[in-house]
């Protein structure tokens, strides 16, 4: 039997120009941090140091918020929606023109496969800017009264799993509604946000409308607690989300939080099985499982359990794990040593608690942070791996007997961000989507995103919605008159 080996097909790094160090983007310019502190961003696939990144301190946060305030009161809030839309359209077009550059940089800094950054992340980033650009001059028709107003300065903190996409989810609606922003990218993935700062310069965006502050948790805390920030938007862990909720309590600040998840992906016996297997794979191994809405709990109807598991394991044997810049890579690197440690720890807990651990044969690179796609069977609701968010390529498989039991198990979690339903029966899809306490319910698909579709959670998965018309609401003060 011959073997069809795919030769390495690396995407060229030549399109990106990574500087040796980066400053903070405040008031339209890159400036050094007041105390000169910095940290390093590394490539998680090989631990190569990519650049020195400025660490914003209290003075820098003050300067950035002041720049955003000035831009808000002097320029951006006075500009017509039509003109704001023009800037957003321009940014969207530049993102498309520089898509290859953004995709390569994202893969280098984050570790995700180039196929994903090229085919999913960056196209969605452009789509979000185009979508919200279109809303900028139509806000009075969005259902928030005849004259909805922006909050003012938005402090935004985003995670490392979809650095550029989360930036778009935050910045596009904020700018379309007339807010100005101070955004802090995650400590391990600041590079595309800094490239976005260059894109703002290229688009001639008025200074101060977008400010990018790099740093770690402390920088984020300073931003959230800054008295002149009117609106806080956060995507990240439930733990930090709770701290933010506590810190804004009793202030006039508005907050939206998009936090963790432990989504159920529910496969009924009449499901299209081959596509369901693809959906399971896409649900948990897409982006190395670093997805808040990942389908990390597979609920399979017992009558098709053997069949689904056999198909799933056969499929997982074909996953290609390795160099994120290789165009044929399906699963890339874990984003950081810290995250890898957490994934390993929880997987060991899974074994210790008696679940059966399985991974396909795959050779992992020696340097960098890697974890083989992993499936746990024999998992029950009582296992920690069925309850805690692992945020890695680890699937817990449970079974159910009836639709009611599926709903009960799916909802029996502190989270409520997303869910998936696989069945050929349309009526069951509708019934399930009404029963499931999850912000997003996918039917016969998983991890599909669109700028027109609102996204957000129940319970410990957070509050507020991003995306779609609903996403505008987080950045608008509704007017009291509701004429139209």
């Amino acid at each position, binding site marked *: 039997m011959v073997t069809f080996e795919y030769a390495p097909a690396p995407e060229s790094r030549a399109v990106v120009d990574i500087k040796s160090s980066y400053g903070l983007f405040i008031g339209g310019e890159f400036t050094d941090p007041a105390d000169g502190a910095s940290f390093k961003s590394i490539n998680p696939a090989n631990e190569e140091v990519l650049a020195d990144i400025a660490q914003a301190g209290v003075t820098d946060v003050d300067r950035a918020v002041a720049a955003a305030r000035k831009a808000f009161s002097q320029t951006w809030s006075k500009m017509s929606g039509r003109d704001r839309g023009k800037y957003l359209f321009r940014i969207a077009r530049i993102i498309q023109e520089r898509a290859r550059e953004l995709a390569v940089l994202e893969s280098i800094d984050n570790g995700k496969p180039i196929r994903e950054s090229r085919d999913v992340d960056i196209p969605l980033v452009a789509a979000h800017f185009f979508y919200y650009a279109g809303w900028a001059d139509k806000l009075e028709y969005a259902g928030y009264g005849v004259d909805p107003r922006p909050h003012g300065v938005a402090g935004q903190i985003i995670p490392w799993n979809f650095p550029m996409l989360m930036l778009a989810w935050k910045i596009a609606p904020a700018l379309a509604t007339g807010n100005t922003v101070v955004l802090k990218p995650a400590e391990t993935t600041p590079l595309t946000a800094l490239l976005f700062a260059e894109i703002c310069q290229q688009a001639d965006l008025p200074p101060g409308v977008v400010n990018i502050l790099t740093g770690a948790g402390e920088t984020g805390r300073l931003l959230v607690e800054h008295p002149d920030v009117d609106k806080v938007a956060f995507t990240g862990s439930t733990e930090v989300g709770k701290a933010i909720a506590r810190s804004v309590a009793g202030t006039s600040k508005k907050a939206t939080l998009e936090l963790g998840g432990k989504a159920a992906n529910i496969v009924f016996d009449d499901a299209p099985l*081959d596509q369901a297997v693809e959906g399971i794979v896409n649900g948990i191994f897409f982006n190395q499982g670093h997805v808040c809405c990942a389908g990390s709990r597979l609920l399979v109807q017992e009558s098709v359990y053997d069949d689904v598991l056999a198909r799933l394991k056969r499929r997982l*044997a074909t996953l290609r794990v390795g160099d994120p810049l290789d165009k044929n890579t399906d699963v890339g690197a874990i984003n950081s040593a810290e995250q890898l440690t957490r994934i390993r720890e929880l997987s060991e807990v899974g074994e210790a608690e008696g679940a059966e651990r*399985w991974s*396909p044969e795959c050779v992992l690179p020696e340097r960098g942070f890697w974890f083989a796609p992993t499936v746990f069977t024999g998992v029950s609701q009582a296992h920690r791996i069925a309850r805690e968010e692992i945020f890695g390529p680890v699937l817990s498989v449970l079974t159910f007997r009836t639709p009611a039991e599926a709903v009960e198990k799916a909802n029996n979690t502190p989270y409520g961000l997303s869910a998936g339903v696989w069945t050929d029966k349309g009526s069951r899809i509708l019934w399930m989507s009404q029963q499931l306490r999850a912000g997003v319910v996918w039917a016969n698909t998983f991890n599909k995103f669109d700028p027109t579709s609102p996204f957000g959670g129940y319970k410990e998965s957070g509050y507020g919605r991003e995306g779609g018309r609903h996403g505008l609401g987080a950045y608008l003060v509704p007017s009291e008159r509701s004429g139209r």
Partner: protein
Amino acid sequence: MGGRDGDKGVLTQGTRLGLVTVLNEAHLADVTSSQASLRQFLLGLPSVDQVGAEARAATLASRSIKTTAKQFAIDLAISMIDLTTLEGQDTPGKVRALCAKAQRPDPSDPSVPRVAAICVYPDLVSTAEAALRGSGVKVASVATGFPSGRTTLEVKQADTRAAVAAGADEVDMVIDRGAFLAGRYAQVFEEISTVKQACGSAHLKVILETGELATYDNVRRASWLAMLAGADFIKTSTGKVSPAATLPVTLIMLEAVRDFLDITGRQVGVKPAGGIRTTKDAIKYLVLVNETAGAAWLSPDWFRIGASSLLNDLLMQRQKMTTGRYAGPDYFTLD
């Protein structure tokens, strides 16, 4: 066949999964006994989600096959071609020219592999057989009232016997799509098994004409029906109906042969035909084979590509890979 590795629980390629919950071997014996049981079985197969199947095919089509992998794929694709001429204007001269091309696709480069077969109408089988004798290139003949299949079973049998008697190694039959779409599965089953008998030792490829079956569920059902009735190969299209072969349709058929082997232990080949014109297209199909049915199908014994103009594009890309330059179309023979 492989087995389960006791230590790690790793499934090796080609392992019988034994998809017992949906299908099993004992069940299959009864399945073909009546129209009712056949219908129940085919409608009970797991359904296909169109959006998901098309997305999977599109993802596989985005694989980047370069350098040594591309060289390997080009030669493999050439060796899998059923070089085809099925025109009213076909003549012995035309067929002889094609037979010469089949044996030595590039006269300037003897390292190019020969194609798998020549595919012609039954009346030209003897011409092809004479031209190809001893070359290793097989003679395939369409039969059973190709391309529509709208004739009696007696005529279809006679058509098949004539082709085999004239020297066809392989018979490409068409199914009665009218009967299939009307739900007369037992009739289609009967026709295929009758033609299979008429083939004797010749290999039977069953053309589903997926462009007329329209849905992927139908493609899956027709694939199983043909395999249950004894098909050695299942083939997408006649090339006379649009759309002919597509990646998602071929994906569904590859899943069907994979699962059929799983349950019965019998391997069936797949042949997409029609509309595959470029090297890029051919490589996409090979990736599909590799990642769906697996490496066991990466051979002309188990995968064929029905095409005519594809061969010259493969030759052009092959030469480009060795010389670094594209030669003009006049440097490749038109046959």
